[in-house]
């Protein structure tokens, strides 16, 4: 190992990491910096994560600080990025692998599901794969084809994996620190649409936001909006609109999709009696179905109206010009709320 930080932290003149107000992209970077400082078995690998600092600059400055042995630019080979991470993780490293866009995770599925997610179980705990796979996901930035997808549902029918999606800078850092420290593989989905959309006060030191705990992003009494990632803001926006009409919406930010915080979710629905689930992914087979199924299973008698799902349509994610027709919008959420209230 390059050994720059055998003693722990900050041996070099470093780019300022301890800002007060960070974007999600900066908070993600900050989490990696903190954890790489604290543990020299934490390494980063992926396409363009080194000299370029990542196409979204999330790894900017890391290679200068930790050197090319801990910040590894890989060939264009997603299966190798994850497959090598399996080898690294099972022998003592904590790799943070970056998949440049979620649309390009498919070639890595075999290594993710066939190996990373199973190593602990199949060896009955003898080997394990503590690794984080970071990937920007979702629409809203008008990039080329295959760059806007939300494939979380694929990962949620595969046990062994955890799936985490922050919706704001504070959670982004705290959840990523938790993910890096987790002893099992974690898929960390970054909502690229809001990578730089706003800033939050983010503590400079390391802190954790626990995996598996949802957050009540806004309290309310008439209806529960359930979302994650970029859709949390869409729900918060919709809540403002609803508030003007005297409708009080509670927004549950799931933060972790697996394990799912069923308790918080059900508690809220039991209180409000109505639920709307919002996600960017294609409707059929999306994770909204699981959420709706669990709510119906555990709170059927408390439901005053059928759960509505506001989701992407069952189509290929449209190119830029028609993207607006695909993505769930504030208006669609408002309309769905009106529908559950009118039932």
């Amino acid at each position, binding site marked *: 190992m390059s050994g720059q930080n055998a003693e722990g932290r900050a041996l070099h003149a470093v780019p300022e990491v301890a800002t007060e107000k960070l974007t999600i992209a900066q908070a993600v970077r900050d989490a990696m910096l903190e954890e790489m400082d604290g543990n020299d078995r934490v390494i980063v690998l992926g396409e363009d994560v080194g*000299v370029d600092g990542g196409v979204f600059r999330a790894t900017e400055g890391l290679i200068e600080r930790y050197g090319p042995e801990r910040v590894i630019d890989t060939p*264009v080979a997603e299966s190798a990025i994850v497959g090598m991470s399996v080898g690294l993780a099972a022998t003592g490293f904590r790799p943070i692998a970056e998949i440049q866009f979620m649309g390009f995770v498919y070639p890595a599925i075999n290594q993710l599901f066939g190996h990373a997610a199973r190593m602990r179980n199949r060896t009955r705990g003898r080997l394990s794969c503590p690794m984080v796979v970071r990937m920007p996901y979702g629409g809203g930035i008008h990039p080329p084809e295959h760059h806007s997808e939300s494939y979380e549902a694929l990962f949620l029918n595969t046990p062994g994996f955890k799936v985490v999606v922050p919706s704001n800078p504070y959670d982004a850092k705290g959840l990523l620190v938790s993910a890096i420290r987790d002893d099992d593989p974690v898929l960390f989905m970054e909502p690229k649409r809001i990578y730089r959309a706003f800033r939050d006060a983010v503590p400079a030191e390391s802190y954790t936001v626990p995996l598996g705990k949802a957050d009540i992003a806004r309290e309310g009494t008439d209806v529960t909006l359930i979302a994650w990632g970029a859709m949390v803001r869409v729900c918060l926006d919709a809540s403002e609109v609803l508030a003007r009409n005297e409708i009080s919406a509670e927004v549950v930010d799931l933060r972790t999709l697996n394990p799912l915080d069923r308790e918080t979710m059900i508690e809220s629905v039991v209180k409000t009696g109505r639920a709307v689930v919002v996600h960017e992914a294609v409707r059929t087979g999306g994770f909204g179905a699981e959420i709706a199924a669990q709510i119906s299973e555990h709170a059927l008698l408390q439901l005053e109206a059928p759960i509505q799902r506001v989701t992407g349509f069952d189509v290929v994610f449209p190119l830029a010009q028609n993207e607006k027709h695909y993505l769930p919008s504030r208006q669609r959420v408002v309309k769905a709320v009106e529908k559950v209230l009118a039932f």
Partner: protein
Amino acid sequence: MPRTKVYEAVTERLEILDTEGRVDAALMPEIDPSRTRDLYRDMVLMRTFDTKALKLQRQGRMGTWPPIKGQEAIQAGVALAMGDNDWLIPAFREHGIMVLRGVPLHLVFAYWAGDERGSSYPEEVRCFPVAVPVGSQWQHGTGVGLSLKLRDEDAVAVTFGGDGSTSEGDFHEAVNCAGVFGTKTVFVIQNNQWAISVPLHRQTAAETLAQKAHAYGIPGIQVDGNDVFAVYAAATEAIERTRRGEGPSLIEAVTYRLGDHTTADDASRYRSEEELEEWEGRDPILRLRRYLVEQGLWDDDQETVLLEEAASWVDGQVKALEEMEPQAPEEIFTSMYAALPPHVVEQMQSLLEEVRS
């Protein structure tokens, strides 16, 4: 018995036209002068529309655009070597050859401006849509080459990809299967030395990409990709070979991406001014012009006319682009299946209601 040679690997490189515009007469393929001028025109046309696209992008009239500047000789040379019925299976930096093969430029623009109709080429154009997932298109090249072989059609499949794409498993499977099945496929690697910020030597420890052909038992050759004659000669040899039923082959064309990776990239973050300048000196267009001028086939007046013609043709294509009716909202649904299932129809109706209200 002891230590014996079981395989001898030799990989050659072909160069014909040097940076000063001089050719190696012994290797120079037969091309008649008017065609040589056409080659030049093709390359200038590419440069013209590539430059225009960058401008459109800056003006917000175009989405992300991957420039082809510096890679024109490969695309013009291979296009010239292809026959009418041949299939082109591009990656995403092949606008030049796509247009030469008949894809209307305004559709290429439309695609990169975020309109799916940009990939709906005229019926007679045998071209696959752009493939963004790096390396995935190689497999289609093998599939189409197999298709043509099974149907015994007098056509070949020419498929393109970048140096970075050779690292993907799909490259390997595709070329290997092409070898096994003897498909009618020619694989062309545009080795522009960079995969976004990653230089070739971090992509593979192999000295050349052409030598990867040895892994598959098929012929491979490296050419100077900024030398249109070398590209044309190698492509002709490869295409004719597979057309005769002698199987697939691989061409590595060494070039350089003179522009950024895409309009979303800033190449100065990861590569040096000097490297760029060095390669600007090897500009394939400059080089061919020197040759044409030397041969008395080209002069300044012709150049002026050509530049004007190219600019006005490109402007016409921009106009055609801008005259396209916007896609109707329901078009996000209408091509999902040959016959739309009920749930998709239902969703389409809900969108239409929303749009109308």
